[in-house]
């Protein structure tokens, strides 16, 4: 009952504080849209070099808006290395080869689409191979990395709001007053976790729904499972935010934790391949909740995995919640011995 009373108070407070409500519900949509726009497609028209292509294909590429230069292979390779052209298209035996400098969602996608279109018009279609001077292939960056953004955005916002809320409770002495009522410490922490958890749930549902139905985010597995992962991540953000607020005497000091707690997790979220990190830095991801959440989201959304495949990640997220939950209960001893 007392726990529910804290849940209700937090709900009323947040509904009364429109800015916090907007921060929880609207800001993630804005950030996700921004990332979608930054990593999505554009009306860019690529410049390519060709060697030995049938005139029909060259004409088709030009008709598609591409700038096509006929160059010897050596010169084309040099220009590609220097970034003067986006791709080099040439015949290798019966195959049609596309050579890119590196994988770029927009440029690679546009060239491939035009070449496939041009070849389809021919009676004798050649197989098409794509190669890269540097890097590897993939879909659009948003398709590939949208799940990472879901995790990061959700963790970041809940961490900050929960942390600042706790700092306010301490600086306004409302925490002191609350602890002078006959409430148990675990009831206070549970009330906070569930109170913010409710808004975290709203955020997860809204963010995922928007991603899937408005931004056409790929979800091969169950959207409900993806929502559950996001909820667990947000709950861990509440507990971690509340814990780090102990070391902050003001809202500003809480913000100072962003570069320490949030930003490093972005790098270990799957945005950068952990295997390629030097000095085995990838191992650091094991102490970061965003890593487990993004790993699970990737399994569900990109490879279509189910609960069974993400059990270790779910267990890790639950572990973060439980550890920080109990640390927060201990931290409240500062206000009351019992």
């Amino acid at each position, binding site marked *: *009952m*007392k726990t529910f*009373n804290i849940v209700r*108070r937090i709900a*009323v*407070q*947040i509904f*009364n*504080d429109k800015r916090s409500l907007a921060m929880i519900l609207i800001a993630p949509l804005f950030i996700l849209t921004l990332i979608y726009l930054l990593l999505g497609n554009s009306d860019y028209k690529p410049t390519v070099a060709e060697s030995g292509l049938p005139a029909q294909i060259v004409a088709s590429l030009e008709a598609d808006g591409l700038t096509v230069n006929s160059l010897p292979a050596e010169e084309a390779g040099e220009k590609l290395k220097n970034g003067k052209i986006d791709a080099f298209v040439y015949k290798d035996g019966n195959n049609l080869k596309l050579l890119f400098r590196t994988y770029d969602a927009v440029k690679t996608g546009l060239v491939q689409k035009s070449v496939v279109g041009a070849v389809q018009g021919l009676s004798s279609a050649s197989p098409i191979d794509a190669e890269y001077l540097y890097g590897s292939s993939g879909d659009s960056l948003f398709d590939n990395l949208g799940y990472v953004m879901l995790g990061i955005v959700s963790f970041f916002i809940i961490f900050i709001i929960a942390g600042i809320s706790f700092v306010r409770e301490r600086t*306004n*002495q*409302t925490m*002191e*007053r*609350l*602890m*002078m*009522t*006959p*409430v*148990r410490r675990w009831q206070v922490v549970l009330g906070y976790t569930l109170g913010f958890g409710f808004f975290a749930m709203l955020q997860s549902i809204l963010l995922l729904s928007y991603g899937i139905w408005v931004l056409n985010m790929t979800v091969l597995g169950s959207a409900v499972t993806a929502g559950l992962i996001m909820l667990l991540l947000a709950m861990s953000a509440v507990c971690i935010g509340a814990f780090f607020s102990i070391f902050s005497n003001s809202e500003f000091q809480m913000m100072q934790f962003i570069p320490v707690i949030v930003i490093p997790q972005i790098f270990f979220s799957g945005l950068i391949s952990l295997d390629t990190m030097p000095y085995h830095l990838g191992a650091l991801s094991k102490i970061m909740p965003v890593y487990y959440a993004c790993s699970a989201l990737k399994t569900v959304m990109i490879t279509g995995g189910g609960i069974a495949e993400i059990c270790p990640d779910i267990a890790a997220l639950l572990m973060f919640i439980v550890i920080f939950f109990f640390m927060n209960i201990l931290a409240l001893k500062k*206000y*009351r*011995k*019992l």
Partner: protein
Amino acid sequence: MQVSLVHASKRFNKQKVLKDVSLEIGNNEIFGLIGPSGAGKTTLIRLIIGAIAADEGSVRVGNIAIPSLEALKVIGYMPQNDALYGDLSGAENLLFFGRMYGLGKAELRERVDTVLKLVELEDDCRRKVSEYSGGMKKRLSLAAAMLTEPGLLILDEPTVGIDPILRRKIWEQFRALRTQGKTIIITTHVMDEAGMCDRVALLYNGGIIACDRTDSLLERTKSRSLEDLFFESEVTGA
């Protein structure tokens, strides 16, 4: 509700902030704690309430050894700051704290109406607390402390920022609570307010240097007023 401290001491980082404090505060008593800043008034209050535990000695409220969750059910506490939720209305704040004490719905409504009337906030109780003036916040904070009709009311600077007319009404309420057998402990810097207490204790440097009825205390120390006594203690340290 009786309060008794027996040789209670408290250290923070090896520094003794309360030294061998013994005190008996009875039922039907309004007890004042006065002393300069840093004398240990707030620490003493936190010890009585159970926010901190004594390193030596003992503290009891009624028959309950402190710290105890059970004791918190019969203690009303008003901290020095307003300690209210600015995003909630005045009534919502009171309802929240009332529920934390486990008050039932009907009883809670009745108590909220009573204390709001007492601090003259009935007309503003639906407004957000962030829109309240300093004095209104102080009154609401006092209302929250009195909400459960506690046997022991501990008030840290309760009437600072409250106008004289309302202060008089609040003191009338304190006296009414005293006749009901309640105990009220007040820390104050306002000397005429300290003069209204049944007894006062003067704290200096973590110890009680004088504790008596106000008139007896003045007679004994040959001070003209509590203000003089307070000033002398700060200057001479005794």
